[in-house]
């Protein structure tokens, strides 16, 4: 069931390009448990793609396959027109895929600025030695990276906490810092694992706006997992629905809303 969408411009003026990532027949097993059963879908350049499903549906596993953390037993991952071999996560990161985590994974003792700077790691080219002696190229590189990071700090409106240790921040701001770090890598594909989990309504609204702005302003392709159906339907261009490791729906939010199988699985309502 592969939809043939041509590159196009959406009603609100964003450009959706060709296929950025194509997942073909992915099957992932842990021992005897099949977490993902022969799932195929694609992510197009410039779109916001959501993966939803009830608890234990295999969403996070799917994200871990995309990020290269898990290697599927069957199936192929195609990225930017080439088949991706089994890779270590840092190699995937160098390809231009960045992510945030469901349970925030920041360095609590470090400042917001330093945390975001770690996101620039894949763009650092000078060697350990020249960085230790702070030779010319290393200092220049740091300044360039800092400039990129400052643009992101401005974009996400976290100037006031630039020098604050992350451990002292409230939850909602930590989530924003994590997004900033992922953005610092200037990814082609940004993976967000439950970006709104545990947030109040106001924080969710803020985060939604930032996700839309990132997509709009930087043209970043975004794949996200989210529980809040309202948020997903508002944000996404297309949605994949998983249930017990199977794909039970794939399409625009409107199509998903009308899909009876999805309604049953998600809401647990039996139909006549």
């Amino acid at each position: 069931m592969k939809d043939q969408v041509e590159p196009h411009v959406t009603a609100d003026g964003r450009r959706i390009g060709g296929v950025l990532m194509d997942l073909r027949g992915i099957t992932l097993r842990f021992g005897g448990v099949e977490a993902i059963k022969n799932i195929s879908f694609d992510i197009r350049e410039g779109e916001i793609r959501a993966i939803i499903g009830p608890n234990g549906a295999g969403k996070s596993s799917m994200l871990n396959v995309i990020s290269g953390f898990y290697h599927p037993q069957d199936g192929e991952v195609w990225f930017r027109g080439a088949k991706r071999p089994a890779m270590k996560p840092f190699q995937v990161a160098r390809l231009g895929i960045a992510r945030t985590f469901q349970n925030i994974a920041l360095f609590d003792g470090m400042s917001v600025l330093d945390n975001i700077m770690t996101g620039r790691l894949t763009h650092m080219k000078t060697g350990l030695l020249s960085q230790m002696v702070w030779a010319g190229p290393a200092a220049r590189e740091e300044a360039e990276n800092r400039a990129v990071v400052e643009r992101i700090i401005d974009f996400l409106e976290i100037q006031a906490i630039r020098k604050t240790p992350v451990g002292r921040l409230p939850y909602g701001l930590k989530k924003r810092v994590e997004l900033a770090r992922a953005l610092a890598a200037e990814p082609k594909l940004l993976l967000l694992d439950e970006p709104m989990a545990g947030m109040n309504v106001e924080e969710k609204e803020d985060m939604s706006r930032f996700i839309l702005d990132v997509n709009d302003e930087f043209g970043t392709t975004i794949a996200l997992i989210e529980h809040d159906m309202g948020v997903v339907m508002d944000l996404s261009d297309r949605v994949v629905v998983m249930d017990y490791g199977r794909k039970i729906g794939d399409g625009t939010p409107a199509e998903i809303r009308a899909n009876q199988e999805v309604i049953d699985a998600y809401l647990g309502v039996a139909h006549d």
Partner: protein
Amino acid sequence: MSSAAPGAAPVSVPHLLAHNVARHGSKAAYREKEFGIWQSWTWAQAAEQIDALALGLLEMGAAPGDHIAISGRNRPALYWAMVAAQKLGCVPVPLYQEAAVEEIAYALEHSGARFAIAGDQEQVDKLTEARASLPGLERIIYLDGRGLRRYDHATLTSYADVQAMGRASGRRAEMQARTDARTYDDTCVMLYTSGTTGRPKGVVLSNRNVIETSKNSAIFDSLRAGDEVLAYLPMAWVGDFIFSVGQAMWTGFCVNCPESPDTMLTDLREIGPTYFFAPPRVFEGQLTTVMIRMEDAGRVKKWLFDHYMAVARRVGPALLDGRPVGLLDRLRYRIGDLLVYGPLKNTLGLSRVRVGYTAGEAIGPEIFDFYRSLGINLKQLYGQTEATVFITQQPDGQVRSDTVGVPSPGVELRIAENGEVFYRSAGTFVEYYKNPDSTASTKDADGWVATGDAGFIEEGSGHLRIIDRAKDVGRMADGAMFAPKYVENKLKFYPDILEAVVFGAGRASCVAFINIDLTAVGNWAERNNIAYSSYQELSQHPRVLDLVAGHVNAVNASVATDPMLAGCQIHRFLVLHKELDADDGEMTRSRKVRRAVVGDKFADLIAALYGGADQVYTETEVTYEDGRKGAIKATLAIRDAVVVTPARMAAE
């Protein structure tokens, strides 16, 4: 300071700009922190930016006399927009960036603005919503395009595009001709007053008003090129216009804009302004933060702080005023400066302050003395939009917390029989725009303007003392003078009390509503092991009520010492379950209590206060930030206060 005018005397802000380019061309005129770095523009660069924008606006059809609305946080580009408008003979109308859509719509309609310049998406959204019913607003120019990519650009243009259009324009001579045609009596700016009653009024200030006032006040405090200010107060407020445009242009000092509203205190520390203005609440906030942190400090530090602050309180103000101080005390103060005052001032960002002002509200004597004892030359001034700020101000060496100083240079003062203060000066406003009735009732044929405040000139010192708003000063049932603000200010000097509203006109006794300050009382509760889950719960905690009762009793004792106002002592009070809020209409945008609105809205509470019950149940409608409405219900305790009988005072 010489006006150093090559050729004619400057008659408009653009003329002053040209002088600054000639005198200080390569010195910093504006700075703004962006992307973590202070970016700066010299006077020459600023003039180029202003010209580009003005030419762009000319290309877009801005005509002389047009009003141009400007809305956003303090940014150099928005200050430039004001001068660009003036170059074309247009009138800049800065708007409060926090204003609600209806308030913006009113200002746009009233001023008939054809162009609006907005800081960011939030302002564009509000202007767009406001213009739905206003076909007169032709175009919105935005500075920060973030989030606007998908908007309909039929009536939207970016600031940079307007400037690009201007740089490509060949109509420089036409622009220059319009600038040259400016006269001293042309309108310089129009500012909407927030107004505690009724619709906002558009105060028209001429070039004469602004330039004369800037000149006089700059000489009064010897402001000069090389001074630094931090521009962080609303651009729509007359004070910001005079400090960041009028005086900056007159003297050629540098205007620094913070990175974001949340980073103001950090930016203050980084810039270290030499000339600083803040309303009392900023000083209160800083002092509260210092005190809270000292409570948590180690024993040695705490002792050092307490010991040397006592020294500072004793000798600091005298040193600042140049009065004689003993050698030993001078030495003690010097050591204190090394160990405590210096580092503290540095942390607060006030190390370099040569002239500091506070105004807008009365400031607590403890707060005022704290800053002065550190050696910060904090002074008070009294002013209003209609006076182009300055009516009275305190000269160096004559600074006290209970007066607002002597008449500013060029200002005449007169006290009417009912106690109302009148003034006349070169800064006296031209008129209220399209409102001759209000103009006539405020300013008489001879140019005297009623301030609406009651006060008196102190014998001996010649300083003005303000008691209250003239219309709020009333009589109690027994004919004694009722001055609620006087009592409220005394209450508000306690950090625990955020707001107070006193009632009593035409009654036999006074009663009060109190708003607790969540930061101060919350911290106190934490230290005293008092658990609470909401503002409402904290406000009604018996020990909080005891705390407030203590403050009310102390204020009563203080009020009783003034025979004229002894009748204003508070007999009964309650602590409100919600903070008074501008969104609910209970305060103005500049945080002044709307007494009548509060009185109407909480009529049930006033009735209970006079009724003798010891508690009252109430339901209050509240408006959330996004405009939705809700209701909060509460049972409020009513307490009796200790009243000092004037009879006993008389007997003593």
